[in-house]
């Protein structure tokens, strides 16, 4: 709790305690959270520091789909669900990802490693079907290719754990 207060405090003082900074603050708080979300405590703290109501902060936070008010996994796998990707085989990619991760679209794995989300166009339709894992876009994807990307991430996490 203390730690969270300090982290939020640092972010707010860096970005400025104005209302115009609210969205940037929410995104930064989310980025700083190990569970990639904006918690209730964080909302309270932001409201306090910006001298505004919690409902105002919630109202902004809940409007934007890239801001999560629920804990998420360490890696966020975003599957594009718009028409060009849909037609290029998004359903097969979805099934492969759901099977590999053992979760459905919109869920987070029990070990909090992965969240799987359906998102709007990633601006990568010249290589549909596309997914984005954290900041990286993967295009011209096959179901096998999607599984490979997930396995590489799992492998990397395992190695991190050992070392």
């Amino acid at each position, binding site marked *: 709790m203390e730690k969270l207060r300090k982290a939020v405090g640092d972010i707010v003082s860096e970005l400025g305690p104005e209302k115009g900074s*609210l969205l940037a603050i929410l995104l930064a708080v989310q980025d700083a959270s190990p569970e990639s979300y904006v918690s209730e405590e964080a909302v309270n703290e932001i409201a306090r520091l910006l001298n505004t109501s919690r409902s105002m902060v919630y109202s902004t936070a809940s409007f934007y789909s890239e801001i999560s008010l629920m804990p998420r996994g360490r890696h966020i796998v975003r599957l594009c669900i718009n028409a060009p990707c849909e037609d290029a085989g998004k359903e097969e990619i979805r099934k492969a990802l759901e099977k590999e991760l053992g979760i459905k679209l919109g869920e987070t794995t029990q070990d909090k490693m992965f969240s799987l989300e359906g998102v709007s*166009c990633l601006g990568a339709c010249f290589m549909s079907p596309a997914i984005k894992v954290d900041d990286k876009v993967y295009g011209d994807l096959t179901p096998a290719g999607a599984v490979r990307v997930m396995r590489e991430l799992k492998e990397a996490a395992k190695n991190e754990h050992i070392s």
Partner: protein
Amino acid sequence: MSTFRELDGYDRVFNFGNCDSSVSLSEYQQTGGYEALRMAIGNPKQALEEICRAGLRGRGGAAFPAGLKLKMMQGNTEKQRYIVCNADEGEPGTFKDRFIMNHIPFQLLEGLTIAAILAGAENGFVYIRHEYPLAQENIKRSIAEAEAAGLLGDNILGSEFSLHLKIFSGAGSYLCGEETALLSSIEGKKGRPRVKPPFPIEKGLWGKPTLINNVETLANIPAIIAKGSAWYRTLGTEDSPGTKLISLSGDVKKRGLYEVPFGTTFREIIENFGGGMKEVFDLKAVNIGGASGVVVPPEELDCPMEYGKCAERGITIGSGAVYVMDEQRSILGNVHNRVHFFLHESCGKCTPCREGLRQVNRIIDRVTAGEASLKDIENLERFTRCMQEASFCGLGQAAGNSLLSSLKYFREEYENSCVDCVEKTSERGELC
């Protein structure tokens, strides 16, 4: 990314180079970059005249004359003004602004700086969607480099002009691309549209006059000033001078981003730039302008990409997304997908859009499941017309428009799925 493709043999506004990386400041300057800024600082009046004479129109979708918007800014006496670059690029099927930001950031920054000087704005934002972290980084770095080189910040190139730019990240709302919703978003509120008028040029960010332009619009400005409006008008047509960046996707051989002179037909875009159809299947339909654009059959493709001619045919060039569907594709599937998109992105502020989309979704679900009747299709048409005419902002209006185009050209596909279709066609004496 080597996906930027172009045809040889004509002049261009954009020079993405052949590289996979971002054109650096020194590379940009070696090829004439920042000459236009010098010229604009030396003679702002002439720079504005060139933009007006060039006939540059907004590339964000609404095609408003860019020079006129600048002149309107100049007509305002308020001292505190802003410039905002709209880099929210949310229209499904569009990736042009991403290419500009990732590959030619200085061309955008130079155009932005010139526009700011002409508009009298000393502060500004580049509103970039959250889905583009690399573009955010590249523009941030480029702003810092331009500042260090005296091309941004205080007293640009030693002149009395200054411009302070900040990046503002969106957070996954398509609606925030709408200019007034975007302003609310920067102000820390929900990204909901505001009543127009007042337009942003009158009362924009924090109530101050604000110039909002799309990335591609601004990136056109350096070439117009450096090479002149007469040169610019040699590209494109009398009605629509210059070129348009086309994001080509779907069932063509070569998907990618192309710089296409206005006046080129959509068929030429698909055949000459896209290399024709990818497989043996015939072309069934083309979706022009993204989710909010129209779906047209092959017969419409000989229409030149030109604002006037397209408007006559009910085609919206919009962001320049061209999505090609072969005969394996389902129009209903495509429409279904788009309705879901709009349902997700609608802010729910007005009834025609909020309730209209719900009703439309319900009907399309039934059509897809083969449970709808022809009466449902008539209702669908009524609802979409109502959305088109009565929605508060461009989202609902465009959603209605795009659905209507599919009904206009592909009604059979809807009707063939209806339970009472046979009766209807037997009246007409034909088979489904």
